């Protein structure tokens, strides 16, 4: 009987202690309660430029086996050949990008779902919600353009997109089927339209931080969205709105090169994408790891192709950004724009651009040429705004001597030169149906892999790690 009393007493004591323990959070998580909490969460939800590895999928880069770190080979050589069986589990790969963007979507979904219920001024909450919608749209835009075919109004309603998760999952082990490309684009546009309305309405509450969406970068995002969807008039309209707000300042490359001369390449690279000193950058991103792992340093193994390098006009200031990559025998160059390169793949914080005035200008020029009634003069005038800051000595081009096709080529050529090393070329290859051939030995007469205009491999395969976590994807892989 006495034992029973002791047992009961112990139970009572345990109950008391439990209730005390349950008053405290069981780990170090912070319960979101104020608007500041959600603002901080949204800052964390901004994605990094996890798509920069795509440069090695393009014709801008070639492989040189003589100077690649051995540990990079199983990851990047298969990717270079557009194979799906690359080694996952490292940074700067499709698998890392997939995980990264969904991780950010989880965070931003929390902001979107809860921010309006928190305490605070309505206008400030709405401004934050608007910004959050753009962050989610940007993450999905990155995902769908990496892991799906390019948007095509004829086929996108059936083309496989990416899983659309727009609410905080509450199930224990949920499955997510892939939406179609059209559905993902509809979600992106819907978020952007709603976000635009909220941000415009509450413009005074928007962050002035260049690492956060502003109206200028929001319009630049619309401009890119409609370029990819071939909605030319809307692309032009949003380009104009973005340029009007930002002032359309173009990067002063001479000043950047002077930084290189006055200091060194490491400092130059660190500062190249600093939005505080570069007003052409409409939205910047900062990462805590080196995201351009297959390019940009001595032992990366992938370098600007000889065709590109030797075809680059010497009177173009952008030619000055090529630097020697190894001994002269290696015949390699680096094109450094990010972080403390060229030879430190494990550097810390680095800055990257998301939207720039240069892109807005070139999007506008392309749309002007491709709209129902092409405006060649306006298109050339737009391109010339960039060219006159890049070509020395500058000589103006005459629109009357250039055919529509030549002008389109000019715009594409300027895109290639201006955005070299910035992870933009891959999307141009997809949307413009360009072919690419890659060689393992760069002087080989025959390519080792060829990517055709409508090659299904232009949709990067859903990563293995994602299939393990979400097994329904096994039956929804990109066709090969």
């Amino acid at each position, binding site marked *: 009987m006495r034992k029973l009393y002791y047992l009961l007493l112990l139970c009572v004591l345990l109950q008391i202690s439990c209730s005390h323990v349950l008053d405290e959070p069981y780990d170090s998580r912070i319960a979101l309660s104020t608007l500041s909490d959600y603002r901080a969460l949204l800052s964390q939800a901004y994605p990094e430029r996890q798509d920069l590895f795509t440069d090695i999928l393009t014709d801008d880069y070639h492989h040189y*086996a003589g100077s690649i770190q051995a540990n990079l080979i199983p990851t990047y050589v298969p990717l270079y050949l557009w194979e799906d069986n690359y080694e996952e589990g490292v940074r700067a790969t499709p698998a890392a990008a997939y995980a990264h963007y969904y991780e950010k979507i989880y965070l931003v979904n929390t902001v979107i779902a809860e921010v309006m219920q928190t305490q605070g001024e309505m206008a400030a909450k709405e401004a934050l919600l608007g910004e959050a919608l753009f962050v989610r749209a940007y993450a999905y835009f990155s995902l769908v353009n990496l892991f799906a075919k390019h948007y095509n109004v004829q086929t996108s309603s059936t083309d496989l997109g990416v899983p659309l998760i727009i609410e905080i999952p509450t199930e224990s082990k949920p499955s997510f089927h892939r939406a179609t490309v059209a559905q993902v684009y509809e979600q992106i546009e819907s978020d952007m339209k709603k976000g635009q309305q909220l941000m415009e309405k509450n413009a005074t509450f928007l962050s002035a931080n260049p690492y956060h969406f502003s109206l200028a970068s929001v319009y630049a995002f619309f401009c890119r969205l409609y370029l990819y969807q071939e909605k030319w008039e809307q692309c032009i309209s949003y380009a104009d709105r973005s340029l009007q707000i930002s002032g359309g300042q173009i990067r002063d490359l001479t000043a950047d090169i002077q930084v290189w001369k006055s200091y060194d390449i490491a400092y130059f690279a660190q500062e190249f994408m600093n939005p505080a000193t570069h007003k052409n950058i409409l939205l910047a991103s900062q990462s805590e790891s080196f995201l351009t792992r297959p390019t940009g340093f001595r032992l990366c193994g992938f370098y600007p192709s000889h065709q590109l390098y030797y075809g680059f006009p010497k009177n173009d200031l952008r030619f000055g950004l090529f630097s020697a990559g190894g001994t*002269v025998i290696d015949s390699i160059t680096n094109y450094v724009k990010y972080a403390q390169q060229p030879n430190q793949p494990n550097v810390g914080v680095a800055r990257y651009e998301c939207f720039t005035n240069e892109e807005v200008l070139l999007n506008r020029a392309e749309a002007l040429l491709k709209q129902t009634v092409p405006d060649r003069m306006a298109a050339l005038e737009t391109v010339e705004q960039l060219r006159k800051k890049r070509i020395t000595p500058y000589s103006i081009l005459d629109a009357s001597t250039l055919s529509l096709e030549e002008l389109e080529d000019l715009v594409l050529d300027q895109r290639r030169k201006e955005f070299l090393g910035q992870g933009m070329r891959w999307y141009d290859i997809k949307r413009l149906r360009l072919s690419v051939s890659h060689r393992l030995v760069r002087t080989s007469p025959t390519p080792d892999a060829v990517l055709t205009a409508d090659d299904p491999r232009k949709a990067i395969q859903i990563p293995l790690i994602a299939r393990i976590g979400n097994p329904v994807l096994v039956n929804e892989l990109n066709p090969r």
Partner: protein
Amino acid sequence: MNIFIRKKRFLLGIFCTLLACQKEDTIAPPSYVDYFAVQSKSPDKWNGLDSLCDSIYNDYGVKIIYEYTPRILDGTTFFVPPNYEKALEYTRIILRDFWLKPLKENFPVYFQKETPIEFVMVGGYVHFNDITVAGAAAGAGLNAQFYRLGIGGINNFDKTNKTALRQLMATIYHEHAHQQDHKYGRGYQYDRISQGEYYGLNYSSKYTAQANADGFFLPYGGYAPEEDFATSVESMVMNNRQAIAAIVKANPKLETKYNMVHQYYLDKGMDLHRLHEVIDSVIYKTVY
């Protein structure tokens, strides 16, 4: 009874296993290759070049290599050994008479401290990765080592072409400058002089006058700081003091580099202007 049968079956099994073992062929152990064994020939098998190399080793402490073993060169880079006759001439004229003998006599301190202990002769040029691919180097890949110098193109050696002989000597000192660079460093300040102005691969489109105006002794020096340093030495071997003084007037940066490199070598016991005179004197006055 059952136990007995089981034992019999067990023994039968063992016996069969042993029979099966007997059928196996004896596995021959892999032949042992000692990659690090010193494979010197015995003197009774020496040819004329071996005797010459031996005397050079005794006189100057440099081991001349013209035959390759895995200990000498690894298998990742392609080297074509030199033609015997060419190697013999090259060793006698370039290595002994033009390089080591004048070096020891005129710059004993520098000779003692800085001379590499091995010299590898390569008949063709050094091909990286693939023997069929163009892009060969005179000495790259050999000269990033503290103890060994190597030069390619021995099969093209022509002792009658004195202009080419001067260039050969300049190449030796160019490659040796890379060694000095690796050994001591060319210095942070040296790299600051033309920071951000190097041509990279575009050096091949420049002429010497343009390179001088841009602050480089030679277009190739504009490739990168390490070649800038080596071509500075090469230029001082090829040109006399007055000619160098005229070249460096093209750009103050060139003058700064000249002063730095000249002093760098002086500190090690080598006056590059004197070296130029010595090399010219042996090339133009020696009977060979």
